[in-house]
C-alpha cells in the first residue's frame, strides 16, 4: 500500500439482535485501504463480508469501533449526513443489480445525479458518457426488463460511478451472472481500477477475487488473512 489510507477501519464490531440473542457479524476488524487499491473480501457465507462492506459504505454503523473514509468519521455521521456522504463519495454495486424497473438505463444512471442536483444537461451528458464507458450506448433507452443480466449489472456500475465516487463498493457483483457476462464485469472492474478507481468487492467468485490486487479473508466476523497479490502487467 502507498499513501494515506482512503478507508480506515479500527476495531469495528457489529452485533445484530436475533431472537433475543446478539449475533456477532463483525468482530474487531481493523484494516486500511489506500487510494487506487483493488481489494477483494472473501470467505464463507455468513462470515461478515457484506456487513463489513456496509460499514465501509456508511450504510450501517459499527456497534463499537470506527470507520473513516477520506478523513470523515462516517460512523459518527447523522443519517442525513451519511446519506449525503454516500451520494457524493461512494458507489455501490449489488448482486441483484436493483435498477429501478420504471426508468430507462440512462434515467437509472441519472438518478443519483438528480438527487445531487446536477443540472439536467450535465447529467444527461455524464450518463451518456458512462453508458459509453460500460459499452451500452445503444441500450440507453431500454428499461431493465429489456436488458440481459450482464447489461443490467453494467448499468448498475455506471449508476454507481455517476457522482464520481472516491470508492466503488461491490457486493457479489458477479453472483447472478454466467461465466461470460461475469467475465465482462471483471474486465470492467479491472479497467476502472487501472483508471484510478479504488475498488472493494465482496465475492465468492475466485476469478473476481483473483483479479484484485489484495485479498482479505474473513471467517466468523474476523479477518484471518490479508494478502497482497502480485500486480499483473
Amino acid at each position, binding site marked *: 500500500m502507498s499513501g494515506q489510507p482512503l478507508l480506515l477501519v479500527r476495531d469495528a464490531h457489529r452485533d445484530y439482535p436475533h431472537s433475543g440473542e446478539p449475533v456477532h457479524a463483525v468482530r474487531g476488524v481493523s484494516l486500511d485501504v489506500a487510494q487506487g487499491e483493488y481489494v477483494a473480501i472473501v470467505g464463507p457465507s455468513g462470515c461478515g463480508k457484506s456487513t463489513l462492506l456496509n460499514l465501509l459504505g456508511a*450504510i450501517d454503523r459499527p456497534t463499537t469501533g470506527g470507520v473513516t473514509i477520506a478523513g470523515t468519521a462516517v460512523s459518527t455521521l447523522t443519517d442525513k449526513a451519511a446519506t449525503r*456522504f454516500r*451520494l457524493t463519495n461512494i458507489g455501490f454495486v449489488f448482486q441483484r443489480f436493483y435498477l429501478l424497473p420504471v426508468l430507462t438505463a440512462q434515467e437509472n444512471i441519472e438518478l443519483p445525479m438528480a*438527487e445531487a442536483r446536477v443540472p439536467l444537461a450535465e447529467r444527461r451528458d455524464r450518463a451518456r458518457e458512462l453508458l459509453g464507458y460500460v459499452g451500452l450506448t445503444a441500450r440507453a433507452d431500454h428499461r431493465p426488463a429489456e436488458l440481459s443480466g450482464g447489461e443490467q449489472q453494467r448499468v448498475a456500475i455506471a449508476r454507481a460511478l455517476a457522482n464520481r465516487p472516491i470508492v466503488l463498493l461491490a457486493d457479489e457483483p458477479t453472483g447472478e451472472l454466467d461465466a461470460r457476462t461475469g467475465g465482462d464485469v471483471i474486465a470492467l472492474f479491472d479497467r476502472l481500477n487501472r483508471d484510478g478507481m479504488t475498488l472493494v468487492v465482496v465475492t465468492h467468485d475466485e476469478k473476481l477475487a483473483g483479479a484484485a490486487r489484495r485479498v482479505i479473508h474473513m471467517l466468523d466476523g474476523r479477518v484471518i488473512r490479508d494478502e497482497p497479490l502480485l500486480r499483473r502487467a
Partner: protein
Amino acid sequence: MRFQLAALSLRRHASRTLLAVLGVAVSAAMLLDMVMLATGMRQSFASLLGRNGFTIRVSPRGTLPFDTEATIGQARDATVAIERIAGVTAVAPVLGTTIHVLGGRNPVTAFALGVDPAVQGDYQLLDGRGPTSNALVASDALLRATGARIGDTLDVAVGFDPQLRTYTGRRRVVVSGRARFTYLSADDRAAALQLASVQAMGGADRTDRVSLFMVRTVPNVDPEAARVAIERALPRVTALSTAGAVAEAEHRLSYFRQLAFILGAVSLIVGFLLVTTIVTVSVNERIGEIAIMRAIGVSRSHVVHQIVIEGIGLSLAGAAAGLILGLFTARWLNSILRGFPGLPDAIDFFLFQPDSAFRALALLVVSGIAAGIYPAWRAASLPISATLREEAVG
C-alpha cells in the same frame, strides 16, 4: 425526478392504479353527493322563497302559509298598514281557493290563486297575457286536463252546494295565458285570477280576505326589523322571514342532513383507507428498490415525497373522476326525488355549489396526503442494511 418516479410507479401497475382511482372516485362521488344533498335543499328552498325579492310571508296567526284554510280579514287595511312599514317596498296579497272547471263530462278541480297581477310572485307567464277581471292564466296541467287553449272560455265555480247539487260562485272566464307556478309542481292543475275576482266568486266568506301577504323589502337589508314591525302592527298575523322559513324547513329535514353527514364521513374514511392500502401494498412490493435508493444516497425526504405524491396522484385523479361521477349521479337521483308528488317544480335536492363541492373534494385530497404519510414514513424508516440482507436472502 420525484414526480416522474411517482407517476411511473403508479403506471407500473396500471390496472391496480385504475381500480384504486375508480374506488376513490366512487368515494369522492358519494362525498360530493352528500355535500350537495346536505346543503342543496336548504339553498334551493331559500332561493325559491327569495325569488322576486319577497322576503316575508304574512299568514293568519299561528299558521304557516297555506297550512290551513284560515284567512286574514280586512285585507285592504292590512295591505296599507304593511306598506307603511319602513323597509317594505311592495305587498302582494294572495287568496287561495279550489275551483271547478265545468263543461266537460267531469268537472276538473284545480287550485286557484287570487293575486294582484301587478305585484305577484306566484307564477311566471309563459305565453299570452296576465289575468283580468274575467280572465285567468292556467298551468299546462290544467290546460291538458280541460283541453283548453289560450282564448278559450271556461265555466268556473269556486264551490259546490251538496243539498242543491249546484255549483256556486260561477263565472265564465277566458284563458288569457299559460303560466308556470313557482311554488307548485309541474303536475299541479293551477290557475291564477285577479284577487277581486276570487273574492267576489267566494261570496261573503271571502270578501276582503286573503290567505297570505307576500312582502318585498329593500334588497340587501335584513328584513327582520320589518318582520317584527308587521307582527306589531297586525296582532292577528304571523310574519315569517325567508331565513325563518328556511330554518323551519331545515328543522323538519334535519335527519336528511345528519344522514348526509354520516354517509359523507364514511365516504371520506373509505377513500382514506383505500389510498393507504394501495400505497402500502405498492411500497411493500418495492421495499428492496427503496432500500437500494437509500443506499446509493437518495434522501429520506425524497422517498417520503415520492410516496406522498403517489397518494396525492391517486386522490386527485379519483377526485376529478368523482366530480364527474358525482354530478351525474346527483342529477339522476335529483330527477327521481323531484318526481315525488306535490313538490314545487323549482326545488332541487342536490344542488351543485362550487364552494362546498370543492371544499369537500379538497378534504378528500388532504385525506389522500394523510393516507400516503404512513407508508411513506415506513419506507423512509427502513433499516437499509437489514433490508438488503433480507432481500438478498429472499
